[in-house]
């Protein structure tokens, strides 16, 4: 039923340059409403930069994005009403308590008063933080913070949910729990899921479509099965390695702006 609708994300000739560095190089793809779309690639491939442009945090150098039918540069408010996101790096307020972080989000996203408390409670219980709800986030461990970030991202029910390496640093128990919840969300609420991860089994298990990006370009897109068939492999991990090579990517900051900043520092 969703498949014959217009794509919920339409990326056309998207490019992002930082000075002479091209972080994202003329990519185009579409995501259908209701699908789970995995965006995979080695470190520094440009995944986070693409997500930043999809979520209006960064303007593209060239090309355009339609998200839920709205242009991410010209119709930012409508775009922002269409998605939720769990960021790759921390975005909690350390001084506030777990509950306050959730409450703040609920207010920003205008979750109606009568269901606000219940939603917050359900999600904090899901990530097993309800009994710690009144503690300041700065007292939390890395895993607890991550769980809270995820709970917060799931608080409102957006049309599209971006998950940028959501399970980074979580134990297998929690990872399973979270993916199960996201799976149900996708099936029951028809939420479109756009995820990145380095754990290929997660992508293989969850995704309808996988796009593999390397050095700012999409090198292959299709269902996990198609990618395996194309590369003559049996798992997505093998397919990924055969497409992107086995060399380790140069360790470095994961976004171009940071690279530029470091270059500027070195010049000083």
């Amino acid at each position, binding site marked *: 039923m969703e498949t014959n609708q217009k794509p919920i994300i339409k990326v056309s000739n998207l490019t992002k340059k930082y000075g002479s560095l091209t972080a994202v190089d003329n990519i185009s793809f579409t995501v259908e409403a209701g699908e789970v779309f995995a965006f995979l690639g080695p470190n520094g491939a440009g995944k986070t930069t693409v997500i930043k442009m999809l979520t209006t945090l960064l303007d593209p150098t060239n090309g355009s994005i339609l998200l839920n039918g709205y242009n991410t540069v010209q119709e930012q408010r409508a775009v922002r009403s269409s998605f939720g996101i769990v960021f790759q790096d921390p975005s909690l307020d350390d*001084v506030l308590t777990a509950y306050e972080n959730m409450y703040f989000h609920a207010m*920003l996203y205008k979750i109606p008063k009568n269901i606000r408390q219940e939603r917050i409670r359900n999600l904090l219980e899901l990530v097993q933080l309800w009994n710690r709800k009144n503690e300041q986030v700065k007292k939390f461990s890395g895993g607890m913070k991550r769980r809270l970030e995820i709970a917060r991202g799931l608080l409102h029910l957006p049309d599209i949910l971006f998950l940028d390496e959501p399970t980074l640093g979580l134990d297998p128990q929690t990872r399973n729990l979270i993916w199960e919840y996201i799976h149900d969300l996708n099936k029951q609420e028809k939420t479109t899921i756009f995820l990145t991860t380095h754990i290929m089994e997660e992508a293989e298990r969850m995704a309808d479509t996988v796009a593999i990006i390397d050095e700012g370009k999409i090198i292959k897109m299709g269902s996990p099965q198609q990618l395996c068939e194309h590369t003559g492999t049996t798992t997505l991990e093998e397919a990924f390695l055969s497409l992107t090579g086995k060399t380790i990517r140069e360790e470095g900051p994961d976004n171009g702006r940071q690279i530029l900043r470091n270059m500027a520092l070195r010049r000083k």
Partner: protein
Amino acid sequence: MDTVYILWLRQMKHYFRSGSRIIGSIGQPLLFLFAFGLGFGPVFEQAGETDYFQFLVPGIIGMSILFTSMFNGIDIIWDRQFGFLKETLVAPVSRIYIMLGRTLGGATIAVFQGIIILSISLLVGFQPHNPLIIPAAILFMLLTALLFSALGIAIASQLEDMQGFPLIMNFLIMPLFLLSGALFPLKNLPAALNIIVHINPLSYGVDGIRGSLLGLYEMGLWLNLGALSAIAILLLTIGAYFFSKIQI
């Protein structure tokens, strides 16, 4: 409105949960009051002026408001570094409301600091000429606080990290403070200094607070009100524009 309120509330929680911040930001003005008040008092009186302590209290209140408001604006850089800024920037609410909430939060804290300094001064012998006009002084504190909170936000929106911070401190905050009427009277100033002082928005804030507390405006009540309001509106507009254009 919810957006403005929740951002304001966050600033309040941050402020009241940081004991060291409260003590630090009250300690410095008190040190200035003590050192300048007692140190320059005798010279001032010899020159035939009245009590320098009386003169200085409104200036130090202005200084405290300047520092607190600017720091609050610059807090955005911390939020950027620790990631929280993203959470507010992707929210489906107007960034102008987010900016306004932050400005009001910063201004409230600054006015609160100003009132603390005023209260302590009253305890150690400061005598306002008419206690009933203290609300007028608080109005001037609020205008000054809004103005510099907006300026802090406008600047912080353009900075990526804390490296530019010492620059702002040395080339903006300190000159704003020293080259205002906070420490010295405005009459008979050398021409160059006189011009600078009249360009400096803090001068109008300090004169407004001082006039309300001591009963004599050097630049005039309406000029103070007009200049502060106009510059505050201008900086709020610029700040809101820059804030809405932040890229991460």
